[in-house]
């Protein structure tokens, strides 16, 4: 995982454990609003990213660079050998695609017909193909584009394909880089906070955009046993549901979210009381946090588990978000640590829910992770720790 809180998982873990946010003023994104807003930018330039992946090519846009860096790390960390003949898939997600680069050249493209080759790298599927090429994955490669829940759907699809015996293992996740396209777009929707976001706070004003690449390797039990590999966690439940309410706003009763959480629980066979921690979608927008709070109470009643949104660390990384938060959820399970909901002061009046506000040591067995995207796309995932012995 590469994000505003670190160029790899170890760095991220240090910042998570020290309650240190990665959100601040941008260095690389050249927007007119540079000095007015804070974002979760990866602390490397494109050149430095190329150094990181040891591959220099002007054809690679920032989305692809972040994606390759993160996918490389995931594969290395998992210990799988991509050349051992087992069927491997790559399911990646993105919303920006190559727009980060295209927008730099757009004016010249339209007015002078220059830089048209940049358009070749524009497609949503491009970053996925670059990652696939780099890793040498051919068996199954696809791109999911369902907005902010994309990576969760990638995890869900990957898990299902393994369950159905279609693949032995799959690299799943997502990547999005900061771009003026997205930034200006979110700004016209007036859901950005110029200052550091405050998820689940009564006085929250909006979200901070972020960028990240985050991938996980999911393997079948058979494949894992074959190579004597060790799993960190197990995907035990997942579900997806549509809110059917509005293109960008969530229903006030959180219906889509409620259904997604309930069905994920149903699949896992767990009772709500068995969830030890919820990593919320928690973007910090007035709408999401209200809707998600309602959904949480719908499902858990008076017994809401400990919860936090980690978006005040990383920003909202869009298509990568669920991947980032899956990695954070697994880190929580591994280290029995809950990372706090930073920048929280006052609970939302309507619900009175209070998130975890300090790094907390706690024995964790099951973590629920929510991701809700534009288009009413609601996804929930449940992870269980895998214990040795």
């Amino acid at each position: 995982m590469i994000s505003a809180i670190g160029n790899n998982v170890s760095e991220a873990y240090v910042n998570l454990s020290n309650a240190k946010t990665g959100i601040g003023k941008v260095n690389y994104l050249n927007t007119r609003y540079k000095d007015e807003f804070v974002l979760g930018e990866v602390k490397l330039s494109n050149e430095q990213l190329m150094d990181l992946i040891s591959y220099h090519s002007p054809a690679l846009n920032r989305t692809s660079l972040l994606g390759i860096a993160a996918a490389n790390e995931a594969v290395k960390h998992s210990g799988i050998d991509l050349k051992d003949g087992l069927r491997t898939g790559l399911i990646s997600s993105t919303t920006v695609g190559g727009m980060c680069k295209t927008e730099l050249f757009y004016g010249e493209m339209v007015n002078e017909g220059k830089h048209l080759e940049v358009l070749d790298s524009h497609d949503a599927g491009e970053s996925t193909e670059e990652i696939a090429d780099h890793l040498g994955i051919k068996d199954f490669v696809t791109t999911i584009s369902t907005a902010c829940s994309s990576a969760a759907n990638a995890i869900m699809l990957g898990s299902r394909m393994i369950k159905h015996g279609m693949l032995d293992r799959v690299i799943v996740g997502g990547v999005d880089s900061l771009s003026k396209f997205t930034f200006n777009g979110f700004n016209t929707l007036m859901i950005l906070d110029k200052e550091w976001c405050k998820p689940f706070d009564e006085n929250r004003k909006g979200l901070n955009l972020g960028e990240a690449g985050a991938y996980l390797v999911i393997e079948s039990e058979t494949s894992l046993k074959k190579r004597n590999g060790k799993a960190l966690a197990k995907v035990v439940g997942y579900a997806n549901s549509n809110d059917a309410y509005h293109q960008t706003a969530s229903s006030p009763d959180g219906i889509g979210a409620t259904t997604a959480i309930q069905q994920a629980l149903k699949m896992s066979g767990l009772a709500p009381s068995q969830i030890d921690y919820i990593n919320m979608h928690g973007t910090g927008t007035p709408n999401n946090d209200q809707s998600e709070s309602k959904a949480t109470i719908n499902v858990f009643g008076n017994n809401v588990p400990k919860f936090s949104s980690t978006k005040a660390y990383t920003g909202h990384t869009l298509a990568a978000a669920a991947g980032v938060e899956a990695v954070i959820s697994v880190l929580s399970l591994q280290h029995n640590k809950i990372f706090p909901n930073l920048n929280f002061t006052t609970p939302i009046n309507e619900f009175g829910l209070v998130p975890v506000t300090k790094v907390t040591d706690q024995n964790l067995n099951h973590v629920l992770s929510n991701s809700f995207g534009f288009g009413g796309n609601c996804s929930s995932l449940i992870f269980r720790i895998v214990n040795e012995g």
Partner: protein
Amino acid sequence: MDALIEKLKGQIIEQLNLAEIKPADINPDAPLFGDGLGLDSIDALELIVLLEKYYQIKIKNPADGKMIFESVRTMAAFIQSQGKA
């Protein structure tokens, strides 16, 4: 004021893609949101863009919109109050 209201109706229909509505269908005092024209939160944002595009008025806080966009007449009154009619 009436001329501004008529002009506004046309601009609203165009900006919000209200293809099945004619200016005569819009009652200048009827609530824009709620049942009337069935406008939603995105339409509210588009009205903010409309004010900037045609009248060079910038609204920084979407919450201010509630009062301004109550009806076509309140919109017109607001535009006049800003000296931009």
